[in-house]
């Protein structure tokens, strides 16, 4: 008896996914430049890390391949940089983009009176953009990584278990990113929607999601701060799995997935509470 119901559910919400995907096609001329931009970023990161590992090699008087910074040698760091970009696309559930449109164009009230759940709708829209981001960014970078790996004889140390865990943590990471993004959308809805707020969010996210450097290399105080924030759960945790960090530590891997689940529950509760408060507020203002 569940099947017809689920069918109706998907029939109701999948058009939002398709709509979000089609919206990307409007910008297809920009894809090339977006990709170019990302490529620059990868290029700089690669040579900067090469320089840094080279500098460490010179100061310790050992070959570059033997240098360890934290738990990372040069080839693992290159993998990290690639996977950071790949996972970014795969988990980029940017609900706040769609909320911003609805706020700016005053559509939010119309959205709320429809017999659709707004949060579910946002989820399906984000899903659409995530599929496109995966196709545009993650896919080319995965190919790039494959080419680089075969050229340099780089091997992945993640086994089947790590791959399963990686897949799970990607799904969790995507959900967490959706919840973070929804929470941010609520925040700008209730306070101010400004370019500055978006910049600030992006800045905080960049540092604490592990975009700049692996969080394990942070000084202790910053690592502690990161533990109280959900950002590392979206990109950093999946990357750890695919790099094989938990290959011989299944208990540790399960724990990491558990932490992601806890974050999902916490963020879900917080955003649900905030959302019900916010919608009540809209009703009051409208009446």
């Amino acid at each position, binding site marked *: 008896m569940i099947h017809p119901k689920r069918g109706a559910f998907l029939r109701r919400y999948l058009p939002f996914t398709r709509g979000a995907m089609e919206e990307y096609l409007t910008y297809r001329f920009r894809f090339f*430049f*977006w990709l170019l931009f990302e490529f620059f970023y990868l290029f700089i990161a690669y040579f900067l890390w090469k320089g840094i590992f080279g500098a460490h090699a010179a100061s310790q008087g050992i070959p570059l391949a033997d240098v360890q910074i934290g738990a990372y040698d040069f080839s693992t760091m290159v993998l990290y940089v690639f996977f950071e970009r790949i996972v970014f696309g795969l988990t980029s559930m940017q609900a706040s983009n769609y909320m911003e449109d609805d706020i700016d164009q005053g559509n939010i009230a119309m959205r709320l009176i429809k017999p659709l759940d707004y949060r579910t709708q946002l989820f399906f829209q984000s899903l659409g953009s995530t599929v496109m981001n995966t196709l545009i960014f993650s896919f080319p970078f995965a190919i790039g990584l494959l080419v680089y790996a075969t050229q340099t004889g780089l091997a992945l140390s993640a086994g089947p278990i790590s791959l399963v865990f990686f897949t799970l943590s990607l799904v969790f990471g995507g959900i967490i990113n959706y919840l973070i993004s929804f929470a941010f959308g609520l925040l700008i809805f209730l306070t101010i929607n*400004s*370019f500055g707020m978006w*910049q600030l969010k992006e800045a905080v996210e960049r540092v604490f999601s592990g975009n700049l450097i692996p969080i394990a290399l942070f000084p202790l105080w910053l690592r502690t701060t990161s533990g109280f924030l959900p950002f590392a759960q979206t990109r950093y945790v999946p990357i750890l799995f695919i790099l094989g960090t938990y290959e011989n530590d299944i208990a540790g891997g399960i724990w990491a997935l558990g932490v992601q689940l806890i974050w999902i529950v916490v963020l879900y509760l917080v955003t649900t509470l905030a959302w019900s408060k916010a919608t009540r507020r809209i009703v009051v203002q409208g009446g």
Partner: protein
Amino acid sequence: MKRVKLYFMFVAQHLKKMLQYRADFLIGVLSFVFIQAAGILFLDILVRETGLFTWTYYELLVIYAMFQIPRGIDHLLTDNLWMVSFYIRRGLFDKYLTRPMPVLWHILIERFQPEAFGELIVGSAILSYALPHLSVSLDFLSVVYLVVFVLLGALIYTSIKIITASIAFWTKDSHSVMQSAYEVAMFTKNPLEIYPKPLRFLLVYVLPFGFTSFYPTIFLLSKFSDGSVLTEGMDWILIKTPLGMLLQAGVTAFALLGISLLIWKKGLSRYESAGS
């Protein structure tokens, strides 16, 4: 009576706008400082002990600081260029054609972007932190050199923005092109020696952002005596003396400005209004 009421409504709106603007401005600067602090933290964690090639940690900070300053000057004065493609698409560009002023000039003076003080403040702060750790002695002449360098750097930014903004005359959309070109400058936050030689060529002769941060820093820190910088970092500089480098920066900046004005003019002459 109605008019008085309307007037106060307008004033109230205006005040709200100003308040929002100020909060926006503060948040914007805060996020900028945050991301810069993260960049410095990156250097602090990874290269504080070792440096990078011939560059010590503090010298790297100087490159980082010098990167901000010409960028900030350009940001302060020419930010409206980012809007050109938007104006063209929305049919707002026509108004510039009706004014008794060169179009480009009108666009440039129309907006003053105080957010750029974020870059200038961060740049100066890092500079004043890093320089005392280095033995830099500046006489009057070298200060003049440095100022010229910084201004030329800002000019390079502006010219590249004009060229890429002009593309909108043909395509109606130039924002993504502009952003890609503008962010090539990111390469020059780091010493150029870390990159392969063809890329250094690009940063000296094609999108000459090298002159906006890296080469001024070489000058400021008198890295001319450093053999490795001369062979690796300056391989595309024709005359490897301070004056030679300044001359090359000047020729490059003005050539680029000339090209940018030509392209702008050509684009403007084929401009068609998006409105009906």
